[in-house]
């Protein structure tokens, strides 16, 4: 009997252990419980282009995003109005001669103006591809999913126009349902893949910068289909990107009368910020400064009125820095220095263009040396443009940016000397050619 009693006890223990294990395994295999903190008002379908529908569930975020339509306050070097870069600094007309950027080049406005502004810009013409809509609309994720990016890019701009009704919105960065941040631009997905990276393994903090790279990156178009591609295979630093373009033999245009195979840089904010800037190293994400966590009544949320942190330093910088007056003064200091350094680089580039143009017109010029000068100029101008087209006037990574400008100036002067050497003409060493141009350059219509 005693023996039986032990066995019965053991039986009960085993049975209970089995039941407990069974219940636990059953529970583990249940679908994860949805967080019920937010009762959703409407169900948003995947890749819904209309942000106002998402906005019914997220009124604060939507209301703040809408402010980007009317916010037009400028900072010293940037801001959100549509001022003309060509009027403010006519050197750009010379530097972009032969390329549509010399026709019209305006500062970017807020996200909600993206479609309106791209449809109005003079750079777009009958030969423009739909690729230029890639970063302008929340219609894109659904269109890319439907037709694939290659077919999208192969379509003409004018043919795509009817499909593009919504400016940049929720669907460009968020997954409907979970609301998590996602990479929606196939070009970014491909570029990360080429580097052996998968954004699905990124931390939340990394995603709060990577989604900005859906658009705020350097890119170029591949082949006749004008397929959007980021030159990131070898890395995202300036020398790696230049090497990538040189290996490829890629050019955006040829500068008239010089034979220089030019490259145009486009807003490489992500590359600049992540190239070891102090804020990036400290774990700060783009959204921390450009979309600060704000309070409305008792509710707190990330502001979707994406703008310069200088327009509200208390809210943006003040999260970490206590003395925002000092911080803003420091930013001004950095930007002023970068600005004058950038203008010096432009003067050097214009002198180099002038020298190469004259050497090209000289039938006795040494062709090998002249080609060397052209290649130097191509790299020098791309370096300068990598800074100039970047929307922070140096602040996203001051040391790195000043180094790039120093390299650009150095290389431009070397290109000028090489051209002078090629032509055997010391008058090509003229400095300050820009200030002698008469009449001064103006953007042509």
């Amino acid at each position: 009997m005693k023996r039986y009693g032990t066995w019965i006890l053991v039986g009960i223990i085993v049975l209970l252990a089995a039941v407990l294990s069974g219940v636990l395994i059953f529970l583990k295999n249940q679908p994860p419980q949805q967080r019920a903190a937010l009762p959703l008002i409407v169900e948003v379908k995947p890749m819904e282009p209309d942000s106002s529908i998402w906005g019914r569930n997220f009124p604060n975020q939507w209301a703040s995003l809408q402010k980007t339509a009317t916010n037009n306050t400028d900072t010293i070097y940037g801001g959100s109005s549509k001022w003309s870069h060509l009027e403010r600094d006519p050197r750009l007309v010379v530097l972009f001669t032969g390329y549509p950027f010399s026709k019209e080049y305006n500062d970017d406005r807020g996200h909600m103006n993206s479609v309106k502004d791209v449809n109005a810009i003079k750079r777009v013409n009958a030969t423009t591809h739909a690729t230029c809509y890639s970063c302008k609309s929340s219609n894109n994720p659904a269109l890319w999913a439907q037709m694939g990016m290659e077919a999208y890019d192969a379509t003409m701009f004018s043919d795509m126009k009817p499909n593009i009704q919504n400016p940049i919105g929720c669907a460009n960065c968020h997954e409907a349902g979970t609301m998590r941040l996602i990479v929606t631009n196939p070009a970014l997905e491909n570029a990360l893949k080429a580097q052996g990276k998968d954004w699905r393994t990124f931390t939340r903090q990394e995603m709060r910068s990577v989604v900005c790279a859906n658009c705020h990156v350097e890119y170029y178009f591949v082949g006749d289909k004008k397929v959007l591609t980021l030159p990131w295979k070898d890395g995202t630093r300036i020398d790696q990107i230049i090497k990538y373009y040189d290996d490829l033999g890629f050019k955006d245009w040829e500068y008239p009368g010089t034979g220089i195979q030019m490259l145009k840089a486009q807003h490489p904010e992500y590359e600049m910020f992540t190239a070891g800037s102090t804020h990036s190293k400290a774990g700060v994400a783009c959204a921390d400064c450009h979309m600060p966590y704000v309070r409305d009544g008792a509710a707190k949320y990330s502001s979707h009125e994406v703008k310069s942190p200088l327009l509200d330093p208390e809210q943006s910088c003040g999260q970490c820095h206590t003395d925002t007056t000092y911080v803003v003064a420091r930013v001004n200091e950095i930007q002023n220095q970068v600005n004058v350094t950038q203008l010096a680089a432009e003067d050097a580039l214009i002198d180099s263009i002038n020298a190469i143009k004259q050497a090209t017109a000289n039938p006795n010029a040494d062709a090998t040396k002249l080609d060397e000068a052209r290649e130097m100029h191509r790299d020098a101008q791309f370096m300068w443009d990598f800074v100039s087209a970047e929307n922070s006037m140096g602040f996203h990574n001051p040391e790195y940016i000043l180094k790039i400008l120093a390299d650009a100036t150095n290389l431009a002067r070397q290109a000028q000397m090489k051209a002078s050497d090629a032509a055997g003409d010391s008058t090509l060493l003229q400095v300050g050619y820009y200030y002698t141009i008469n009449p001064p350059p103006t953007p042509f219509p």
Partner: protein
Amino acid sequence: MSKPPVVIAIVALTVALGVFAWATNATAYLGHNPSTCNNCHVMDAAYENWYHAAHQRFADCNECHLPHQNIVVYYLYKGYSGMKDVLSFASGSYPVAIRAEPLTRQIVQKNCIRCHEGTVNNILAGAQPFDRQCWDCHRTVMHGERGISLTPYQDKEVYTK
């Protein structure tokens, strides 16, 4: 009493314990990942507000909320505090507005000093009695301004890291 039944019982209990640890991800509670603390949805606002405030990049929950004088005290308090949270969550007896209790306040205060000692040494050694708490004045540094977080994006199902 013969041996086999005892062995069988021990094996069964060990297996059950193992399944328990696996199914509840129990080992995570020995660690210091803030999203583990946020397994309880009542921590949404505390988590989200901490995430967006200045300390996120330097101090996780445990840095401030657990005592750090030695590993024994650390894990004893972690166990006590965690079980208390489990009990109050399971029984629904937690308050609507969760506030730090006196013992927690002592611990947090010590942790403020642990990191910021160089800055506050003069105050600690000063003639005035040091009877207030850092956050009586520095109200927003840990969890930002008071307010409820609207969007708890921190779901583990959404972000794995």
